[in-house]
């Protein structure tokens, strides 16, 4: 490879030799110190390559061996430049491109975060941006150890952070702290009581006395599992009762459009911003508004985002709307509230069946949501015990 490069740099000549004695020609060339390579014998002709100097002194050797030599090709940098002398623009373009690449490679092209599970990418990126780790800054200006230490002190949830610079790409590796598990205090005497009204479906007692059977109806506060144990001799002791009590619970809630505040959007503005190596060029004006959001869209290579893209910014002001909305909108709002409530219920229970009924009201449209849910209703309730020193 290096030899080929050097040959190209200094230039070489491909030639054809014919007539005479090929073996004698090669021997004489070697004797005279004329370097030959890629010597091929094709149809009585010899094709080979030699240096420019070698070709200049090849004629006497060819004459001695009875051969005629004709150059077929001149290859090398100087021949290339000579050939493209009139195309100076290309050369200038190549030089300018090389310079641009050399300059741009000194700057950060992309910053990405890996290893975060609960913390948001944007939160971490903006934290590191505060300490100079951002797109567009010179790579040499980044103090990766200091930035990692400062961000770790800013964000308590981080247990470890490292800023890895790979050329123009920065990969921030983080590890989040694992919260210590909640200590379950089983030393306090407790009862398990009903947290909601319902019909008991199943009772699994871990500790304590079962006070209720499946099929029984309970109201909020009823004792389900008792933490008071009675011995055969009539004596009592308190323990930490625990268990799982599942019940069928009825949920009901009314929704109306007045449950949700309506806002009117004013001064809605959208503008595009060109992002190039950390420089933001806004295409238009945008004043200060109550609400602001932006969507970033960057060019992407196979692995990384490139520091080139368009940011779409959106801003608006809101004013509370008191006016009466049409029936369809009212319906939508009520159903939306209903959906939010169902989502909330589903987090802790299993919905068996549900129904939504329209309730006619004079002023507004109301919807009544009712559902039957299976849920865990057992709640721990501490038993307060008064200690006395008198033992009889």
């Amino acid at each position, binding site marked *: 490879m290096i030899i080929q490069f050097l040959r190209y740099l200094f230039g070489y000549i491909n030639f054809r030799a014919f007539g005479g004695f*090929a*073996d004698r020609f*090669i*021997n004489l060339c070697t004797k005279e110190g004329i370097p030959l*390579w890629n*010597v091929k*014998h094709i149809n009585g002709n*010899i094709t*080979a390559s030699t240096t420019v100097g070698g070709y200049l002194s090849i004629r006497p050797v060819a004459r001695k061996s009875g051969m005629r030599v004709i150059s077929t090709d001149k290859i090398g940098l100087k021949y290339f430049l000579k050939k493209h002398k009139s195309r100076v623009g290309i050369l200038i373009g190549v030089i300018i491109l090389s310079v641009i690449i050399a300059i741009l490679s000194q700057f950060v092209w992309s910053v990405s975060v890996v290893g975060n599970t609960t913390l948001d990418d944007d939160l971490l990126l903006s934290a590191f941006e505060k300490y100079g780790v951002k797109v567009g800054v010179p790579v040499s200006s980044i103090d990766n150890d200091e930035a990692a230490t400062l961000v770790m002190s800013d964000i308590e949830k981080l247990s470890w952070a490292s800023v890895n610079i790979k050329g123009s790409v920065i990969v921030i590796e983080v590890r989040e702290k694992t919260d210590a598990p909640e200590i379950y205090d089983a030393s306090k005497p407790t009862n398990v009581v009903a947290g909601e009204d319902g019909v008991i479906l199943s009772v699994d007692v871990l500790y304590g006395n079962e006070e209720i059977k499946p099929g029984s109806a309970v109201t909020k506060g009823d004792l389900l599992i008792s933490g008071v144990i009675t011995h055969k001799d009539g004596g009592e002791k308190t323990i930490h009762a625990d268990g799982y009590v599942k019940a069928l619970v009825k949920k009901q809630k009314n929704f109306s459009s007045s449950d949700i505040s309506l806002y009117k959007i004013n001064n809605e503005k959208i503008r595009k911003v060109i992002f190039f190596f950390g420089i933001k060029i806004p295409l238009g004006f945008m004043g200060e508004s109550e609400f602001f959001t932006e969507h970033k869209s960057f060019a992407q290579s196979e692995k990384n985002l490139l520091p080139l893209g368009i940011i779409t910014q959106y801003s608006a002001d809101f004013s509370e709307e008191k006016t009466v909305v049409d029936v369809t909108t009212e319906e939508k709002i009520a159903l939306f509230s209903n959906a939010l409530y169902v989502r909330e219920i589903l987090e802790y229970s299993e919905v068996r069946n549900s129904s939504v009924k329209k309730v006619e009201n004079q002023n507004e449209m109301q919807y009544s949501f009712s559902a039957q849910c299976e849920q865990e209703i057992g709640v721990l309730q501490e038993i307060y015990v008064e200690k006395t020193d008198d033992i009889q």
Partner: protein
Amino acid sequence: MARKKKERKLQIPELYLNEAKIEMLGNREIIIDGCIGVIEYDENTIKLNIGDLALCLVGTDMVIESFDSGVAIIRGRFAEISFVS
């Protein structure tokens, strides 16, 4: 001279000092250290002077990759290699 110095350093017995060293990579490449010259050269045959003997290579697509300072590198598809005295 350089070759002889190298051989002395490598402590090669005196008996073999004038012998050519031949290295083959399958039937596709042959490197001959101690090649004095080319005796015969045509499309399918290359006969090389390696001192007391001549090395005859028969094959196709044969190319003298380089021939310098007594070292010849020949590439091709060799079908036959023989020594002729």
